[in-house]
């Protein structure tokens, strides 16, 4: 069996893994990237629409263009070893950590390392998770799978489709399907407001007169061998009103109903998972409950902007390098979600530096205020013109913001939205 030793191993060669690997190698450590597909780039490869990189590069790039920037960075670095078409099946935390990576090309490779970066991304919530009753015909796809089939393989999954979920993936697919000649009968959204960006409502639905059914859901899928139709049911005060249901004849239904951080490997490592995010609990350096195992990107929590994924992953990588150099701080203090906040990441902060956080609101509100408090006293406030659960909020706490903490016995911070 081939045996290898690296300073760090990154699980996943997508946007998070590439940014982390580039930073780790750039600072002189050896790093292996394990990627199960036959190319780097992750989900960006199939996101052929634009809107990426506006924050990071001040350019409006497509997914593949954004990915290529990081792929080129990584390919140029000497101390990055890339394992394509490789899947980690057996892992053991320890000193060192050990990983068995399976591939056609190399057989099973035993890799030992001192630090691990979990960057495996997400999987899609599927029909089984949300339990749509009815029959089980062919023609039920998650939006991401349909995107992969159309954009990478050039396969069209159906001719008349209904899309469940108005998140950006569903909206983008409404346009993509229309642009390959598929009839999109409508987008069905359970909430009373669309969860994707308004610009996508305009350029993906309104441009094509595709109806958006807010406060509706799909209550049944019909068809023996292939989908023949779905029943769309409105909700009033959160409850389905079957009497007002209507049917849409279609041969396909696309589900864009949420993403789940894919933490199976994390589980195998014994990492503690946060039920609010679906990803690991992490301290201020994005290190999990297992020493030397870090997490960044969608596996940690579902992001909206890849620009933030890159930022988070590079930040994580800097801490990985500190850890490898024996310079990792251990005095972290907790930061928790308060009123109207679903989660805040990371779960801890370090007083002597600038800490960046990402959070999600539980509520939709205009002219909101973000308040970080210590023992009930506000430490910092930030005005937010508009918050909604599907738009991640970012904020900083620097040394000055945090100076009152040193005088307090209680160190726990609470973040709320009012």
């Amino acid at each position: 069996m081939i045996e290898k030793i690296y300073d760090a191993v990154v699980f996943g060669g997508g946007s998070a893994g590439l940014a982390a690997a580039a930073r780790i190698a750039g600072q002189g450590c050896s790093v292996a990237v394990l990627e199960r597909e036959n190319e780097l780039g992750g989900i960006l490869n199939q996101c052929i629409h634009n809107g990426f990189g506006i924050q990071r590069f001040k350019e409006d790039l497509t997914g593949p263009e954004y990915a290529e920037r990081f792929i080129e960075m990584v390919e140029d670095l000497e101390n990055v070893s890339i394992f394509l078409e490789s899947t980690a099946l057996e892992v053991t935390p320890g000193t060192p950590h050990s990983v068995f990576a399976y591939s056609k090309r190399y057989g099973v490779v035993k890799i030992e390392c001192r630090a691990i970066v979990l960057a495996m991304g997400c999987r899609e919530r599927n029909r089984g998770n949300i339990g749509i009753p009815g029959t089980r015909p062919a023609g039920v796809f998650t939006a991401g799978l349909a995107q992969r089939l159309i954009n990478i393989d050039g396969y069209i999954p159906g001719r008349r489709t209904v899309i469940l979920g108005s998140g950006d993936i569903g909206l983008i697919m409404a346009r993509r399907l229309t642009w390959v000649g598929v009839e999109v009968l409508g987008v069905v959204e359970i909430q009373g407001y669309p969860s994707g960006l308004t610009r996508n409502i305009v350029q993906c639905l309104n441009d094509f007169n595709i109806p958006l059914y807010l406060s509706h859901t799909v209550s049944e899928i019909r068809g023996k061998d292939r989908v023949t139709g779905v029943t769309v049911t409105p909700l009033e005060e959160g409850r389905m009103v079957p009497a007002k249901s209507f049917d849409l004849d279609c041969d396909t239904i696309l589900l864009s109903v949420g993403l789940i951080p894919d933490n199976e490997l994390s589980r195998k490592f014994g990492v503690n998972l946060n039920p609010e995010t679906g990803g690991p609990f992490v301290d201020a350096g994005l290190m999990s409950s297992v020493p030397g195992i870090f997490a960044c990107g969608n596996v940690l929590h579902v992001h909206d902007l890849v620009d933030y994924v890159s930022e988070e992953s590079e930040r994580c990588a800097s801490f990985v390098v500190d850890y490898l150099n024996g310079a990792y701080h251990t005095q972290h203090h907790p930061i928790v979600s308060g009123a109207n906040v679903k989660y805040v990441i990371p779960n801890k902060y370090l007083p002597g530096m600038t800490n960046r956080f990402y959070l999600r609101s539980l509520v939709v509100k205009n002219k909101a205020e973000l308040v970080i408090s210590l023992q009930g006293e506000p430490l910092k406030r930030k005005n937010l013109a508009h918050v909604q659960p599907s738009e991640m909020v970012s904020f900083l706490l620097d040394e000055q913001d945090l100076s009152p903490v040193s005088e307090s016995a209680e160190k726990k911070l609470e973040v709320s939205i009012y």
Partner: protein
Amino acid sequence: MKNSIYDVAIVGAGVVGASIARKLSAYTSDTVILEKEWDVSFGVTKTNSGIIHGGFHYPTSTLKGRLEVLGNIMYDRLQQELHFPFRRCGILVVAFTVEEMKTVEKLYMQGVENKVIGLELCNRDRIHSLEPKLNPDVIGGLHAPSGGVIEPYRFVFSLIESAKKNGVELRTRFKVVKAEKKKDHFLIQGENRESLRARYLVNAAGLYADEVSAIFGAEHLQIKPFKGQEYLLDRNAVGLPEKVIFPVPSTVSKGILVIPTPEGTCMVGPTAIEAINKEDLSTTQSNFEKIFHSARRLIPKISERDIITAFAGMRPTLEGNDFYIAISEMQPKLIQVAGIQSPGLTAAPAIGEYVKDLLKTAGLVLTERPDFDPFIEEVPRIRTLSPYEADALVQKEPAYGEIICRCESVSEAEIVAAIRRGHTTMDGIKFYTRAQMGRCQGGFCSYKILKILQRETGMSIEEISKRGPGSRIITDRVGELAVKPPPAAATSTEEGK
């Protein structure tokens, strides 16, 4: 062989037909098994709960009781020969009240009468030690260590593979629509104008045994479909039990069960509701609540958050509450095997023996095949090997190193093995390998399996289906559909429209 007359034609390649076929393959008679679907096990057997029952639910005065007990003990040897997933994990029937405990005692006595080995009446301490996740209100129950769980479709695939290895012919996509009685044989016609001739017939057509009986001019049967809905739970589910958990049965059904599977996942269900028609396999929301309420009563930690998927199956019930396995009185060369609902899976190996004997009684001369080989090749499954064993295997056959389904750890070599054994639909591959069965439900492996299928079979992408004609996955390629001009006036760009 194909132009002449078969000795036996079996209609239906579910677990019953396949068991009979495999039994007959030990003899020199020419046997053909006919299946109307694209692949075997795609009918009733596909959605079977997979329980090998403990032999105490029915008296041996019934045929099903006798065959259940006989069938149960045949599974160990079958597993050695055919390598399907099977675990004798044990069954518990649990009681909450003194009244229920009396019913449990009756089941125990019945089992003892049926000569079932190892049955045990358990008090509160004993039953909770056997299954710590039980509801603390359980006061006792029955423990049947002879009970177990299998993957029914893997079982059928392996039976058919073994039967074929020993000379049985399989004809899929052959739906019997007409039969003509000739002097000493039947001329059987399929839906697509195929035909063949056979001297003896076995009607093992499950839900359609009544139609097939009519086609052959035999008894009037009425198969009433009874639907059962079930849920599959994640292997990481906290509520996963060690043993199969039964409540005390009612007069109507065995109840909602919690069933661990041999591969580490778990099922809850099934319901038992008379269905409108044989084809309506839809699941409903009302059943969901009922199933989880009942399951949680047995194992409180069962949670709907762990659901991977839901599905429904259909039981072929016949009036009279017993198996109808007999030489047809109207067609003396036809063996009827109808109304095989629970404990049909458990009884299947014994049904194979029983039908073989009925064929003999009906006049079929059976000579043992001297070169009968009961074993089939065991296909390595990468997930069962240690990394070192896996490495050795991958060095010899690299396709074992290419992991296609990461949720269930299935390699490309296993998918190719499935395809080469005739499982050329997405569902067939799923049942043989487990790829697409895991938590992502095919999100990350489907597009890879589509490519492998095209490469191995030469099928075009439009021909590939979920489970046969009518269920294709891809309808067109990009560029084949006309792109419509944009609408004349775009709709208002008001938010929230």
